[in-house]
């Protein structure tokens, strides 16, 4: 794998259907933008749902940020770029969602430390089905693909 193309393995924080959860969600190419303590960061990556049922990302927390929000950057009809809060992100069955600059992203406010390239932050993501998932997210820059990753073929 090159650059920041890191496959972040899932570690299940809570009990439950551990085997099923590990095989269903994957977190690919996650990275966070360098930032100062007074400058917010944003995290990006690809959430892949290998399962047949949809799941929903409900919230994200991080030990490195006092406040974490799901946001989307959109271009309004006047050509202005603006952000809007997103309450949840649905990942369809055998589908994926890309969090990327200029689109959906995880915003990290009130950082507890300066984030420099080479650092790693921890993100905890809560899903409606899969529960809490924890990923290690490197700080740096990305050559993140604009397109969706190839998913396993879906057979009915």
């Amino acid at each position, binding site marked *: 794998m090159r650059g920041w193309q890191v496959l972040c393995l899932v570690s299940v924080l809570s009990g439950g259907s551990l085997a099923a959860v590990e095989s269903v969600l994957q977190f690919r190419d996650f990275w966070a933008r*360098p930032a100062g303590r007074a400058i917010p960061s944003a995290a990006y990556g690809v959430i892949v749902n290998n399962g047949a049922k949809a799941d929903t990302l409900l919230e994200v927390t991080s030990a490195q940020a006092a406040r974490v*929000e799901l946001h989307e950057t959109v271009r309004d009809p006047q*050509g*202005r770029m603006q952000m809007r809060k997103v309450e949840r992100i649905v990942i369809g069955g055998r589908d994926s969602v890309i969090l990327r*600059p*200029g689109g959906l992203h995880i915003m990290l406010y009130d950082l507890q430390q300066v984030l420099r390239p080479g650092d790693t932050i921890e993100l905890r993501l809560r899903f409606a089905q899969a529960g809490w998932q924890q990923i290690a997210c490197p700080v740096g820059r990305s050559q993140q693909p604009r397109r969706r990753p190839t998913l396993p073929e879906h057979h009915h």
Partner: protein
Amino acid sequence: MVVISALLGCQAEQGVVQGSHYLWTQQGKLINFPQDLRGEVLLVAFFYVQCPDICPLIAQRMVQIWQALPETRGVRAVMISFDPERDSPERLREFAEAHQLPEPGFVLCSGKPEVVEQLVQQFGVVVQRTPTEFTDGGVSYFFAHSDVLFLVDGAGRIRKRYTGTDAPIAQVVRDVQQLRHQQ
């Protein structure tokens, strides 16, 4: 009032930055924009430090352009914050460090609200402050804003505008080189 219309050739003029605009920089110095930078080709963008998504992309694209320039002498990248309430020299410096903006080529600046407003209007940038409430009840504000990069010649004339986050690097480099040779 500057009128900026469609994309025109580099020979064209899209307006002149008029008057003296005193701005503080990330070094805490006061500069008179654009008078103090007269004679230099300027890449100018408007931004705010608290913008976590789009403004870093604009900065990143400006760095890519900067690194692609065969010669940076006589060229300056100027990022003007339209959030003077929060963007002190220290904040600007923190942004420059976080995004590894080349110095002394990159000048980050802001100024009194009325001064920044004059520049926003002269460049034809659209900026709208939008209050926001966080999930935990905290309040802050963002800005809805244009995504533009301007090419300004050594006489303070706006010669071209590009989409900031997606500016065509090779084209901008050619345009900068052309203006440098005309100076």
